[in-house]
């Protein structure tokens, strides 16, 4: 049980495709607990991915229930091991930031509804449907497992209404 330091870009681990997590591997449950502790300690954070604390394994934790945007629509604390998005639909835009990229935010458009498959902390296969802010948070954290930052997804400059081609 430990709060870990958040790794900042340009550490190369943030651009690494993470390896699948295996339950027989040592330290998986400790990693999950560290992710949760780090997320909670970061105050307003709603999720942390393993590479953000220096481990290139496919594990994220997400909890939007404490945030204003997510408190009415969420699954509480989610521990997602080897998660995969099966379906996505709709789109919505949030002004995203990331603990690993301080002092920068950008508009990112992501799917509004997703179906995600993952293993939970106990190794059970689960499939959930997430919508709204929770769906956005899941997509942001899952991107970390493939070496993507929100900077790779910025859809527009601050005000993009004039940039559209006629």
């Amino acid at each position, binding site marked *: 049980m430990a709060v870990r330091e958040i790794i900042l870009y340009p550490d190369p681990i943030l651009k690494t495709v993470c390896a699948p997590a295996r339950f027989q591997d040592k330290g998986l449950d400790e990693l999950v607990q560290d992710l949760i502790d780090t997320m909670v300690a970061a105050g307003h954070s709603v999720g942390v991915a393993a590479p953000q604390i220096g481990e290139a394994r496919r594990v994220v934790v997400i909890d939007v229930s404490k945030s204003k*945007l997510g408190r009415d629509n969420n699954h509480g604390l989610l521990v997602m091991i080897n998660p995969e998005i099966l379906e996505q639909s709709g789109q919505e835009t949030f002004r*995203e930031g*990331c603990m690993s990229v301080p002092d920068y935010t950008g508009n990112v458009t992501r799917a509004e509804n997703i179906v995600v498959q993952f293993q939970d902390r106990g190794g059970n296969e689960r499939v959930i449907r997430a919508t709204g802010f929770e769906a*956005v948070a899941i997509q942001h954290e899952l991107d970390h497992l493939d070496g993507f930052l929100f900077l790779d997804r910025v859809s527009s400059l601050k005000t993009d209404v*004039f940039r559209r081609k006629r």
Partner: protein
Amino acid sequence: MHHFALTIIGRDRPGIVSQVTEILFRLGCNIADSSCTILGGQFAMILIISHPAYSSRESFGDAFLPLEESGLSVFLRTLKPGGELHPEMRGEICMISVYGSDKPGIVYQVTRELGERRVNITDLNTKLVGSEQRPVYVMMLEAVLPEELSPEDLKAIMAQLQQSLQVDISVRSITPVEL
């Protein structure tokens, strides 16, 4: 290190940015924050730059002369120490859309309401759209509210202004989410 604000504007064409930044690169300047955009047929560049050895405009000599010769206007301003630092802004961020039939004073009357309440505009774009017969003015702005002003207060103020100005105004609160 001294910082400078460099503003360049001229008829848009491909290659302006590389022409400008090649000069800066060869001088050994750093580009910090910058914003460049096309306005009408003009391309406008605003950059905060620095140089480890330069302390005044004179240090640049006639480095920007080729830009002037190619039809660009160049303006260089020496910043006072600290002038390059982004101030910390704690209040709520709001996006305000204003649009309607074009008429004089839209920008002024909206921004006067904001300025009087110490709302800090951080980004503002306007564009004249629609047909020549029925021009439509669109203004988008992003602003940081002072702590004593809530987005609801601002919405109420803008709703009043919408009546008197006969334009459409909407205010949306933007919550940047740290994930």
